[in-house]
């Protein structure tokens, strides 16, 4: 059934977008249904002017398809797409007030940075001189005035990204779409560009939708996240809300938490996976339990007399470096991820197949209604 959204949406009534507004409202109001063979994308999206919404999800979740549908590059099978009250579903891409920053920017290689930015205004009817003046202004605003005459291949990744942003903004779109805006950059440039992009997005007066598989990008750039998995919205909310209360395995992994679903009865949540987890929260009914990998302690023998009341018998499935620590993937009574120091890993003689006891203090778990 495609009707998954109302409940999920209701979970986090946004401050501005709030309850579905009247059709003539400003901003974006869309339900995107795109059929692609066996794959079906079906998501609802609303956003007010000034909102920055991130579509976050694993590869193949349908994020880019959603973006292409918004831009008019992929036709909708069903649904609607209203922008500032105007229905755009049948409008071809060149007539939509939509700007796109593509993942690899797609700057026209035969045009200078200036002419790339002037391209949009020119197509939308501006005279040559006027379009170039406007483009120069945008490049100046991006701090790229001295690169106006450069061809795209002479630009660094970060500069190309800003030219692409300027090019998309120069048409004064009412909807700005960004596809993995930082994916093409190396780690160092990324930091810098992310900060710059955040500034520009914050200053952007219309709706911005960005697609990313990087939770950090999403959390830094967007004020609302929509998590998409297999063509559906699985969670929606503010970055901090989602980081604290992941509702799927994927989101939990993104934000680095162990997540389980079960049924709560007082201070105990009996997990669907088998064992029970003691928590400090007092709940009843379907619930999630989450705890960070750093909260897990590992022991060679069953810990006794410790304050950890959650103890499970596990087996090491894999080890890998994680920052300055070691991340252990465990299977057994309760599959989980644990972080420990390299020294501890050596002392415990951890290796794939090694039996261990995993313990988590109740105070370090977090339970919330499912």
């Amino acid at each position: 059934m495609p009707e998954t959204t109302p409940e999920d949406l209701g979970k986090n009534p946004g401050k501005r977008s709030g309850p579905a507004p009247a059709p003539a409202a400003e901003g974006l109001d869309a339900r995107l249904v795109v059929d692609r063979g066996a794959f079906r994308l079906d998501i609802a999206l609303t956003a007010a002017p000034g909102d920055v919404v991130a579509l976050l999800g694993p590869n193949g979740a349908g994020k880019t398809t959603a973006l292409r549908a918004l831009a008019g590059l992929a036709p909708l099978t069903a649904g609607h797409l209203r922008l500032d009250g105007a229905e755009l579903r049948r409008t071809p891409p060149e007539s939509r007030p939509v700007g796109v920053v593509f993942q690899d920017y797609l700057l026209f290689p035969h045009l200078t940075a200036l002419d790339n930015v002037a391209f949009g205004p020119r197509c939308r009817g501006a005279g040559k001189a006027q379009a170039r003046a406007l483009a120069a202004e945008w490049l100046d605003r991006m701090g790229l005035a001295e690169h106006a005459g450069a061809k795209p291949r002479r630009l660094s990744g970060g500069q190309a990204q800003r030219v692409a942003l300027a090019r998309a903004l120069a048409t004064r779109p009412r909807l700005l779409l960004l596809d993995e805006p930082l994916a093409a950059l190396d780690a160092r440039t990324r930091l810098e560009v992310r900060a710059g992009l955040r500034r520009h997005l914050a200053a952007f007066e219309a709706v911005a939708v960005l697609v990313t598989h990087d939770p950090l990008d999403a959390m830094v750039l967007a004020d609302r996240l929509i998590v998409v998995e297999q063509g559906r919205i699985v969670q929606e909310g503010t970055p901090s809300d989602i980081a604290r209360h992941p509702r799927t395995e994927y989101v939990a992994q993104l934000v680095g938490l162990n997540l389980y679903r079960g049924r709560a009865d007082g201070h105990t949540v009996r997990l669907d996976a088998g064992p029970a987890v003691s928590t400090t929260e007092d709940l009843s009914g379907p619930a999630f339990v989450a705890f960070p990998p750093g909260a897990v302690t590992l022991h060679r023998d069953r810990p006794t007399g410790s304050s950890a009341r959650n103890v499970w018998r596990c087996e090491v499935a894999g080890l890998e470096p994680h920052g300055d620590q070691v991340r252990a993937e465990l299977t057994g009574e309760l599959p989980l991820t644990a972080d420990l120091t390299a020294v501890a890993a050596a002392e415990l003689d951890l290796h794939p197949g090694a039996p261990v006891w995993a313990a988590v203090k109740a105070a370090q778990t977090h339970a919330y209604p499912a």
Partner: protein
Amino acid sequence: MTGRHGTPPDPGALAPPSDGGRNGTPTAKAPRTARPRTPGRGVPLLLLAPALLGLAFLLVPLLALLLRAPWRSLPEQLTSPEVWQALRLSLVCATAATALSLVIGVPLAWLLARTEFPGRGLVRALVTLPLVLPPVVGGVALLLALGRNGVVGQWLDAWFGITLPFTTAGVVLAETFVAMPFLVISVEGTLRAADPRYEEAAATLGASRFTAFRRVTLPLVAPGIAAGAVLAWARALGEFGATITFAGNFPGRTQTMPLAVYLALQNDPAAAIALSLVLLAVSVAVLAGLRDRWMRTV
């Protein structure tokens, strides 16, 4: 380079100059000649012999042309009005045929590369048919289509008084018929290799499909179009069968260089050789012009 200079003397960095000095070869060429050879592994004779034979087979006729060329009387031969007439006609017709191929061939290539329509595979096959069709057959087919009593030609004659066979325009059409497929195939290949997402980017910036084609796609595939045009031009220049069938052999009107060569061979072999040399020179010039594109070894 700077890194090399910065490091303390290392034998690798010093080797090329000393090597170059000993051999007397310029150091700039050192990297090129330094191709590693596998020692003790010769080329098998069973491959080498036919390979050399093949090479000789291709080169000896050209060599013969140069050897037997009437070098002394050449200036005189080449300045004769007939030669100039044929050469000028050839250049004009080949260029016109190329221009016509560009005007109708590039859009056709775009259609084949960028749109979906039923029977596209068949259309592509039909477009490439003139590549494998004997040109004489093409000439006959053109006569049946555009001849005075042809399927289309009779109406052209009746309505507009246009007669195409045995005219200079007929030469251009015959050459276009034979040469355009080269252009279409080349441009279509380039279009397929070009990223269609640039057109999408143009669309999101407000460009109609035609504007996107004109301002983005066309400049991007320009090298492919140029290569295709040169190929088509060279093919048109050498066209013989379709031209003589459809346009005849009238000096000054439809007698292009290849026709003149063939005719001259009957009664004035020296002239035929001279004319052939001119065509050879043109071909070599074309090849030289394209060397960056095709001669670069992989």
